[in-house]
């Protein structure tokens, strides 16, 4: 897990360096085997209930003229990562791409350097956040949770209550890596969109339901997923997911629960016990919500999800069937049609009861 991984990452990086170094000294062509990320090697692991990489390995060997360049790129990204971690600095994918230009490591474009970063993630089995390469932060957390920073050095030991900022606190590395000191909440609400997150704060949902609120702002970034997992595992808090009633919202919930295929090389980002409380396709009728017809793209997406291993359970399948039957979708904001507080007063208690009873 990310919190303890800085030292682990460093030891993995120096192990990689030592191997290559020794191979060169022996007069051998240095080579690295990386779990292959081709579709044929992405398999669903029943035990972990997430996609993982299979047994296939792809080779990056200095003996092969076609691989020596990507091997060099990978080793450069590794040494760059080492510097970030040892110096306690962070970077972004874009920033790394620009850095590469200084080293004569020619990435043709940023997608190539992004891919190489993913290679390193795969090789180390660590998300890039583990070696301080971060995406743009956009998720936020609000609730009665006191944390103590562990990074960066300047803030180490400082404590803060996540209920202190009414806008919510941005979920960055420092928050995701912080120690949990005390928590009065007994559940977590994860919300797909900021408008509803704000409404929940204004309506004192954290108080009424004794909950921590997290805004994922669309598909949850890795740090948010990591934080959700930690809240679930370390504090034992049940996690409830709230998204729009369409195949995309549904999938935001699914990725938090069972991970994405893109990150099949990473583990320990999923929260298997998280519950999707809605909006379900069946909620549209149940709560008489204003709805819109599905688009062509939506319908295609539904067909894809039907085949997806992660959706094979009855509840998920029946929701997909409902979408296919009604051909309608609805958004979380749709509750406003029933009054400003309807979602909090009527919907949430009813859905939580449904979930807890089932």
């Amino acid at each position, binding site marked *: 897990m990310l919190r303890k991984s800085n030292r682990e990452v460093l030891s993995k990086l120096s192990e990689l360096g*030592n191997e*290559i*170094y*020794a191979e*060169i000294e022996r007069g051998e*062509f240095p080579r690295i085997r990386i779990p292959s990320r081709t579709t044929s090697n992405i398999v669903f692991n029943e035990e972990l209930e997430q996609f993982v990489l299979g047994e296939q390995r792809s080779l990056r060997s*200095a003996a092969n003229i076609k691989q*020596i360049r990507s091997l060099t790129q990978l*080793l450069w990204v590794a*040494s760059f990562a080492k510097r970030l971690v040892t110096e306690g600095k962070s970077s972004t994918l874009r920033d790394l791409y620009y850095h590469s230009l200084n080293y004569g490591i020619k990435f043709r474009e940023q997608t190539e350097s992004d891919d190489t970063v993913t290679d390193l993630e795969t090789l180390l089995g660590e998300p890039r956040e583990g070696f301080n390469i971060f995406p743009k932060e956009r998720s936020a957390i609000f609730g009665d949770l006191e944390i103590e920073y562990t990074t960066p050095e300047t803030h180490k030991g400082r404590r803060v209550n996540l209920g202190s900022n009414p806008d919510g606190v941005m979920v960055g590395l420092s928050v995701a890596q912080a120690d949990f000191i005390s928590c009065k909440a007994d559940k977590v609400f994860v919300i797909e969109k900021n408008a509803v997150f704000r409404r929940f704060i204004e309506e004192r949902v954290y108080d009424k339901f004794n909950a921590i609120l997290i805004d994922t702002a669309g598909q949850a970034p890795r740090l948010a997923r990591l934080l959700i997992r930690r809240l679930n595992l370390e504090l034992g808090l049940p996690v409830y997911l709230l998204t729009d009633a369409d195949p995309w919202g549904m999938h935001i919930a699914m990725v938090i629960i069972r991970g994405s295929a893109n990150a099949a090389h990473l583990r320990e980002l999923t929260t298997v016990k998280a519950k999707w409380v809605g909006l379900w396709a069946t909620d549209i009728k149940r709560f008489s919500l204003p709805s819109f017809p599905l688009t062509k793209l939506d319908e295609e997406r539904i067909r894809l999800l039907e085949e997806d291993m992660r959706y094979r359970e009855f509840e998920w399948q029946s929701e997909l069937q409902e979408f296919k039957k009604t051909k309608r979708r609805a958004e979380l904001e749709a509750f406003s049609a029933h009054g400003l507080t309807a979602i909090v007063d009527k919907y949430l208690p009813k859905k939580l009861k449904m979930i807890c009873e089932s």
Partner: protein
Amino acid sequence: MSKEKFQSISAADFFYRNREIAGFDNPVRATYTIIRELVENALDACEQYSIPPEVRTKLIGEGGSIYKIRVEDNGIGVPYDQVPYAFGQILFGSKYTLRQSRGIFGLGGKMAVLYGQITAHSAVRVLSSTGGFEKYFYELSIDVQENKPIIRRKDVTPNPGRWRGTIIEFGFEGDYIRAKPKVVEYFRQTSIILPYANILFVDPDGVLYRFDKVTDEVPKPAETVKPHPYGVDLEILHRMINATRSSTMVDFLVNNFHRVGVATAINFLKEAKISQSANPRTLDSKELLRLVNKMKEYDGFQPPDAQCLSPIGEELLRKGIIREFRPEYVAVTQRGASAYAGYPFIVEAAVAYGGDIPVTPQDEILVFRFANKIPLLYDLHSDVTMKVIKKINWQRYRLDVSAMPLAFFVHICATKVPYKTVGKEYIADRPEVEYEIEWALKTCARDIRNHLAKKEKADIVQRRLSVFERYLPMIAQFSTDLAGNEKPPDYGKVLRRVQAHAKEVEQRSLVEAE
């Protein structure tokens, strides 16, 4: 009813009236032709006696369109008493036998003199010596109607330095400014085919063009041979019979024809139904006609042999091309002797790649044609060589004629070059000649293809090597950083493995190419 007036004209008169067929149609063409004819006579005077040629040509503007040409050689020299005929009588010459030489009848040089006399009222001045104790000076003009030399002045002086050679000088009306590109090109191409000659040309502007020899080796001179039966017509047969001292047909054939022995002669005469013992002078015209026709049909004659030819050889051709173009690669080939209509010939060809050879514009091809060591500069597109080049499927040899820096060279040596015109500018498409040119060029093309394939392989190997040389140090450095070591590992061993592999690949490709 008017009376047609018949009159015979002299050879000189004939050529005067028909000067365009010999390349004197206008001042531009005449300038080029005069220089060419004189230089070729000079070269022949050297080569036929294995003398490495030193030929100096000077063209001087005399005002207006009048020029003075002066050509000096170190050849064998013209004997004292023959000078007037050699330079003042058309169709007189040493060349009226069968062997490879540039001119056949010694016509061109005298045409040049005649042209000068007509256009600039210039007499020709000749200084010559065969290397004896004297040199002799003549000033001559041609009596056009009588075809006789007129001696205007004659001087014999001592030759203390034993100088040998000939200097000829006369004036003519020309146009050097417009002839210049062809003239300079003529000298340049002559130097390609004659890498053993020192050639010097000073033009009217005082510009010096100098082509120094790159070798002292002179090709074996051509030997004189008797005519081959295939190449004889009724007129020639008449003359031969008139001149012969043989009293039987067998003797006549054996003594006067190329590669005809007693057995061949007897068999042939049986076939022709002519008595072996018949006196050739007693044959009637029907028998003579039958004889000539049978000579062309009979397949028992030995093919003509090539001792009468003087090809320059693969090595010299290569040297000439290298001097001029410094190409990356030259493929040269010499075909065996062949014959058309009883005239032996040899084709030599070369294809050069890269170096100073430019990539020609689309639909232009760099072709250099030579016949008996004369560069052919006109009418490329009517020439048999061009026909062959267009016919060959170059893609089979992985050559792209329009996109690669390629130059083609074809040299035909023959006792009688099948020119299409008297102007000696392009070769007719005789099937035998065409066949030889085609195979010569294909042989060269194959050679070039192998070279390019080898080079390509070597390039790939080199590029591979440079990739390793670029990335291995980086890999070494990054692994050092990652491992936290002080100094990078020695990647030399790995690199040497790559180099060894490269060498192996290269050697393998060498073997394949052979």
